């Protein structure tokens, strides 16, 4: 079963584009990363899936249920972490956690206690006194304490220190192994490549690509560096060029035999042709069609 399936999902804010014709598909049990620069439409997609925004056109389903017609059934199955973790400032953490559990008509005390312990969150503090990182932890506990089938996490690690990030991903992995689906948006590529199995890239409101992390890394693009040349050679299909101390570096996205042919006419002292790392590939997606 698909955990998330969208069909030409489109959201306009008046005349402003939010997202356009998004076709996204996430299998149940997946660990899915949703990547894109700021303002690309990540949060718009997520907020539409959760029923906070009404889609302009297109449709979407979560566990086969329509996001407009079956909203309540969906919300019982979902744990959502908003990118800005803002809650009622005057409330104590434990009261907020209890309030959320009560709204869900579930007893989450045991799970909440264990999560707060692991994230070292003091539940007696008032929300207003908490630092950004600690408020984020409150958001994480709220999204996880009722053990939903699907986690929708909007930029989950902002504000968390590296140790907490590690603990947080450890908890997510455990939940994922128990069968839950994780869908997280991020612009931190290293964390997506490290933890996710599949990923989709969104830019300017459009879905560019959606595939496994492995396939996304093998795009046929090569990183080339040439030692002992006087300038970056004039070859078609190159990008991200740099030149210093007689060393030219660039990404090549054309036909590879063409590359060898073009290089054959140059004189250089050393050459390396490698696969670019994951981040370079994504930067390539981010900027490709904008140029």
């Amino acid at each position, binding site marked *: 079963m698909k955990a998330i399936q969208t069909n030409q999902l489109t959201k306009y804010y008046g005349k402003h584009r939010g997202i356009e014709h998004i076709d996204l598909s996430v299998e149940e049990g997946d660990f899915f990363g949703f990547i894109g620069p700021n303002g690309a439409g990540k949060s718009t997609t997520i*907020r539409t899936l*959760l029923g906070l925004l009404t889609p302009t056109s297109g449709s979407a389903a979560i566990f086969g249920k329509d996001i407009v017609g079956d909203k309540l059934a969906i*919300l019982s199955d979902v744990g*959502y972490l*908003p990118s800005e973790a803002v809650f009622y400032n005057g*409330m104590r953490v434990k009261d907020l956690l209890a*309030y959320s559990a*009560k*709204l*869900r008509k579930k007893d989450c005390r045991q799970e909440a206690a264990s999560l707060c312990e692991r994230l070292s969150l003091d539940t007696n503090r008032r929300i207003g006194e908490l630092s950004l990182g600690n408020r984020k932890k409150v958001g994480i506990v709220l999204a996880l304490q009722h053990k939903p089938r699907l986690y929708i996490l909007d930029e989950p690690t902002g504000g968390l220190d590296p140790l907490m990030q590690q603990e947080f991903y450890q908890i997510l992995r455990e939940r994922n192994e128990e069968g839950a689906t994780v869908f997280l948006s991020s612009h931190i590529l290293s964390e997506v490549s490290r933890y996710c199995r599949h990923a989709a890239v969104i830019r300017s409101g459009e879905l560019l690509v959606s595939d496994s992390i492995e396939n996304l890394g093998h795009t046929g693009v090569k990183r080339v560096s040439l030692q002992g040349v006087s300038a970056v050679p004039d070859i078609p299909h190159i990008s991200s060029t740099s030149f210093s101390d007689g060393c030219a570096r660039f990404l090549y996205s054309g036909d590879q035999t063409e590359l060898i042919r073009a290089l054959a006419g140059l004189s250089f002292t050393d050459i390396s042709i490698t696969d670019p790392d994951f981040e370079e590939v994504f930067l390539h997606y981010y900027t490709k069609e904008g140029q």
Partner: protein
Amino acid sequence: MTVFLQELRRNRLALLIWSGAIAVMLVITIVIFPEMKPQMSEMEDMLANMGSLSDAFGMSNMSFARFTDYFATECGNVLGLGGAIFAAILGVGMLGKEEREHTAEFLYTHPLSRTRIVLEKLLALVAQVVILNAVVAGASMIATAAIGEEVDWGVMVLMFVAYLLLELEIAFLCFCVSAFLKNGMGAGLGIAIGMYFLNILANLTEDAKPLKYLTPFAFAEGSYIIENHALKAEYLAVGAGLSVIAVAAAFLRYHKKDL
């Protein structure tokens, strides 16, 4: 009723302060009456010469040496305006505040329908206005009984009912504003104070009289209640109509609103 109870808990301090402040002011107004009474006849002569000004405040045909008349006028200013401002501030924050402070994202991603949440918030608003009026009415009646003046209890009860209805109408109008504006504080206070002055304006000249249909302060005017032992049905009907429209508009708006 989780949202309802949470709203009451969250606002209990403000409710306590407002109820306490208005009750204390009314009790003071009541307790000083026996001392004021001898001076009231002088004041009456003065008021008789002020013509349209006493009309404006609904004070013509009133005798301040009688407790019920005195109370009806003073009560109108303290409980009417004070309660209306409380109802406006509360109503106008009910929905919009969650959007402004980004807590809407928390609340509306729980498995409760929007209609349910809006309904519970509306009930919390009504409950708080009712509690404030119950506290104030209770304290006023005890103080009235204590000073031992002759009083028409029927009129007093009717007046408290009228003020409650007035505040509820203001609350409903502001609740509607709250469904449309994230920060409607200015609009809310404008409605409460504007309605008060609209009634004064309507009392000033015969031409402006139709304005009385628009403002809930019209049916809470003491002189009519004392004279007729009733609230004016036409004004009440228009107020009820406006309230129904405002609440319906709030529900419709929130059904599909982007949060």
